[in-house]
């Protein structure tokens, strides 16, 4: 070890070349991975915040036929059973969520009606903390609703105006009822603002005459890493205590496109690691090979003295290992500082907000660094760095003492 340490400082300039290559490689790997993860997590979070939650419990047939016929009967009992399965800090609440028609004197548009406990939505979906022009809804308000800003523009209705909402009833017939717009909400996402109408749970329950029933239970649990399958585990746990007619689905099953994006991001990260590593690897191999050729007489001397190939292999690999570890430590520290700074300020992408909104990514990205990602990047560099260093190390073992001494 001592000899390897001294050997790497024989030619400080060459050592700095390798260290710089490793440093830049690792810093960019860790920093960009954190930024990408922050971007993807923001997309997942926003998607889940748009009413999906982490786990959705619904009637097994509701996915294929999302009508009131496939509702959860006796939803409060189901809710109690679901709550019993939740980890600490988890939340669950019931909703009635169905499609309907909003009719005015001039227009008729399809809408998604979300009836819920407005206070309980806090921290579960955007409903809990939306900005409202007008008045807030009260949970006991049976005749008022909130509509989105984009919808209000489209149909030309403002706060205080009335419209007729029609939905399918339990007997298959249409039920219509008038509601007054109590407030207009803003989410920054046009699609949501155009399609969602929010009302108190009790209002929908009364309109549809489904006392004690609902269409879904949404579950929110504390999650630090969306790549882990905590939600799937919870969904399975809930399914184990439910009859077959009720199905709990993790968000990955509810919005597979977002889940696929997460997988794509993971693959992209590996490709990114590989590209950075190839560039870095060339630097390492070239420089170590140069160092090995410069010291070929010394390797010949060691072989003559009785050093085995494995001794020389070990010596060269130890030198490379030390260099990579120094580069990794430096790279990790700098990347950590960069990420820490950006974690408070964020990366402002407001200039591309329309595009970002479309794919549910926040306008300000905060990098997310996990210990696992750091270890993954470091191990990739260390393992591949050692692997490619076998070539110069084997070269050092192949020098015959006679050949090298002849040049003396």
């Amino acid at each position: 070890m001592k000899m390897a340490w001294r050997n790497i400082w024989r030619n400080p300039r060459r050592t700095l070349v390798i260290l710089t290559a490793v440093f830049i490689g690792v810093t960019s790997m860790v920093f960009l991975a954190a930024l990408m993860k922050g971007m993807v997590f923001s997309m997942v979070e926003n998607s889940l915040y748009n009413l999906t939650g982490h786990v959705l419990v619904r009637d097994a047939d509701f996915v294929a036929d999302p009508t009131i016929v496939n509702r959860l009967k006796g939803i409060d009992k189901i809710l109690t059973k679901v709550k019993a399965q939740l980890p600490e800090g988890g939340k669950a609440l019931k909703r009635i969520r169905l499609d309907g028609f909003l009719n005015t004197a001039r227009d008729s548009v399809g809408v998604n009606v979300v009836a819920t406990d407005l206070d309980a939505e806090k921290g579960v979906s955007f409903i809990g903390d939306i900005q409202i022009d007008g008045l807030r809804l009260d949970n006991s308000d049976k005749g008022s609703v909130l509509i989105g800003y984009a919808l209000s523009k489209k149909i030309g209705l403002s706060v205080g105006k009335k419209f007729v909402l029609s939905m399918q009833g339990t007997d298959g017939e249409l039920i219509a009822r008038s509601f007054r717009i109590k407030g207009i909400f803003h989410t920054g996402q046009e699609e949501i603002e155009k399609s969602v109408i929010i009302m108190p749970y009790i209002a929908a329950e009364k309109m549809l005459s489904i006392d004690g029933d609902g269409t879904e239970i949404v579950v929110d649990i504390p999650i630090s890493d969306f790549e882990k399958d905590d939600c799937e585990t919870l969904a399975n746990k809930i399914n184990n205590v439910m009859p077959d007619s009720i199905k709990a689905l993790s968000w990955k099953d509810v919005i597979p496109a977002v889940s696929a994006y997460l997988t794509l991001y993971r693959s992209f990260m590996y490709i990114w690691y590989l590209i950075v590593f190839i560039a870095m690897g060339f630097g390492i191999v070239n420089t170590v090979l140069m160092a090995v050729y410069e010291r070929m007489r010394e390797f010949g001397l060691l072989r003559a003295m009785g050093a085995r190939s494995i001794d020389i292999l070990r010596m060269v690999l130890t030198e490379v290992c030390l260099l990579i570890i120094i580069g990794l430590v430096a790279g990790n520290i700098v990347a950590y500082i960069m990420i820490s700074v950006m974690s408070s300020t964020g990366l402002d992408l407001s200039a591309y907000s329309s595009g970002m909104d479309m794919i549910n990514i926040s306008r300000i990205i905060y990098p997310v660094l996990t210990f696992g990602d750091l270890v993954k990047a470091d191990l990739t560099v260390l393992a591949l760095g050692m692997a490619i260093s076998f070539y110069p190390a084997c070269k050092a073992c192949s020098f015959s003492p006679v050949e090298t001494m002849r040049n003396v």
Partner: protein
Amino acid sequence: MSIVQVTNVEKIYTQGKVEVKALDGITLSINKGEFVALAGPSGSGKTTLLNIIGGIDSPSKGGVTVDENIYSEMNSFQRADFRLYNVGFVFQAYNLIPVLSAVENVEYVLKLRGIKSKECRERSMAILSEVGLEDMADRRPADLSGGQQQRVAVARAIVGEPALILADEPTANLDSETGEDLLKLMLKLNKEKNVTFIFSTHDKMVMDYATRVIYLRDGKIEDTHTI
């Protein structure tokens, strides 16, 4: 008792399409404790013969036995191990590892054998003391004179108490006074430890110290002179 037995050894090098016979039917026997000089002009085959006796080169024909071990029956790993335990080398130049101090250079051989650090250091310091360099144990080769470097190389060759020490023109890069000091040191170790020394030279002064001088010319033994 014979420690080195060389039997009808030939060594042919190929340089492009030309074959060069470096050794041509060498047969000789060297007894334990001898202080033998291989003499002859450049290109006579001294270094090649030393390399073959040391097991770092293989003959094209013939056989070499050192301390009853036949090289041709060993693979490269066994030969490396054999050298580690039985043969010490002193080369003309580039003898020491520049990043190690004098004492670390000496103990390197012992460490290769897996001996514990403390024992390595004690034995190395003792041998450096014998060659008169105990005060310079912590100096790197660059901070030692040519003569001192060669003495460290001799100390390293002898620290493992090998049966045989091979020295390829050990005094070639030294002035005559330093060269003579080195020879006296080698002779002293030869006598005190009964280690066999074989060294190549074309320096008359060096030959005068040898108990036997084997003259080589064009890869053949031209003459042998025993003192």
